[in-house]
């Protein structure tokens, strides 16, 4: 088995485009997931029962079904609800929804980790609830939840490979496509594996840097 590198160099442009699609859907999906997740966490913690009960059902459903099935529902089932999406927006929406419940779980533990006394103090000082969330809770909980967030973001990076099944031309789709054109499956799949390993590793390294940066105020504080 000899590695034929010309197969890769010949298709470098396509691979680059696929890589960009992977990066794009990944970051858009993460952004959407973070936003939805924060909303869900806040609604769960501060909402009344009418809000919480259906959310609970939604969370359980998303957590117990495979990402692929959710994608099918958004992409193929969407048109029945008037949601006619192209593959890429459908993929981003699917990734965002899938990620949101896990992000929400992380945010929820984060919110609960901030001592109650601080919230009472903020209340006494006349700080509004929104201000309290933005200024007091989020900065402190970020330090605690960052490792979990980074972990989830890398998981979502790997999930983008599944988007190839709904015909999004991302890295997996492009490279397996080249594979079936040239029959050089081993070469293309090896490159694919290395590509994902690099992405995941870069993501976790970046996460570690970020942890240091976000946790800086903790070290400056005299104890």
């Amino acid at each position, binding site marked *: *088995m000899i590695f034929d590198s010309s197969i890769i160099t010949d298709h470098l442009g396509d691979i680059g485009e696929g890589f960009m699609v992977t990066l794009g859907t990944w970051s858009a999906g993460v952004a959407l997931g973070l936003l939805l997740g924060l909303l869900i966490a806040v609604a769960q913690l501060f909402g009344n029962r009418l809000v919480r009960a259906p959310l609970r059902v939604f969370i*359980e*459903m998303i*957590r*117990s*079904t*495979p*990402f*692929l*099935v*959710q994608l*099918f*529902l958004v992409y*193929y*089932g969407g*048109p*029945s*609800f008037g949601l006619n999406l192209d593959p890429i927006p459908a993929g981003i929406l699917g990734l965002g929804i899938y990620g949101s419940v896990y992000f929400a779980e992380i945010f929820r533990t984060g919110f609960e980790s901030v001592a109650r006394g601080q919230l009472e103090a903020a209340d006494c000082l006349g700080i509004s609830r929104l201000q309290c969330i933005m200024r007091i809770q989020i900065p402190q909980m970020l330090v605690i939840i960052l490792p979990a967030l980074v972990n989830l973001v890398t998981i979502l990076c*790997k*999930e*983008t*490979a*599944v988007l*190839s*099944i709904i015909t999004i031309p991302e890295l*997996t789709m492009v490279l*397996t496509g080249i*594979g079936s054109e040239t029959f050089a*499956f*081993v070469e293309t*799949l090896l490159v*694919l*594996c290395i590509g*994902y*390993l690099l992405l*995941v*590793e870069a993501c976790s390294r970046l996460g570690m840097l970020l942890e240091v940066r976000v946790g800086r105020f903790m070290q400056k504080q005299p104890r």
Partner: protein
Amino acid sequence: MFDWPLLLKNLPLLLDSLLVTLEISVAALAFGFVIGVIVGSLRLSPLPLLRRLGGAYIFVFRGIPLLVQLLFIYYFLPRIGLPNVSPMVAAVIGLSLAAGAYIAEIMRGGFLAIPGGQLEAAGLLGLSSGQMLVRIRVPQAVRLTLPALVNEMILLIKASSLVSVVGLADLTRTAQNIAASDYMFVQDYLMLAGFYCLINIPLAFLGGQLERHLKERTA
């Protein structure tokens, strides 16, 4: 929106394929457990080289998307002289290798939680390190990590939805085939989601109960 007679007609097909999904998930959990115990022990080995080896295994199999691993197996097995591996076997190999990496991390945590005195005592009593692993470390680690292992089972059942790429007709693939023939995407895929919920929600509940039970006992 729902065509109930059609749903009922498809039910037996889906039930059959549910069995396939459950079979490969359970098999992958079992083989993954064996891999996990081995790799987890490697991670705790006193020899740096073995520790590295365990670390590399986990890095590779956790860093590459499962879909890509399955594709790799599908195209790679014929290349190394195994052209006629059945889809079922290929799927179980793929899922087990990936599960092994996750279970290795779980087992490492379990092994570390066992008091060192027990191992010293076992050593003094003349147990070999293999006996220690099988008789002392694994049984206790399993008890301690049972909730995490149940969670791994849920993850595996969900992950098994990707095995159609190696040509196996699992639950997801069967629902896809049904949807492709009757065009009732919403009802077919909702039904599919319902099947997964039906297995995973009770499992999650079981995991939660086990965790609470464990906390009460260790507290």
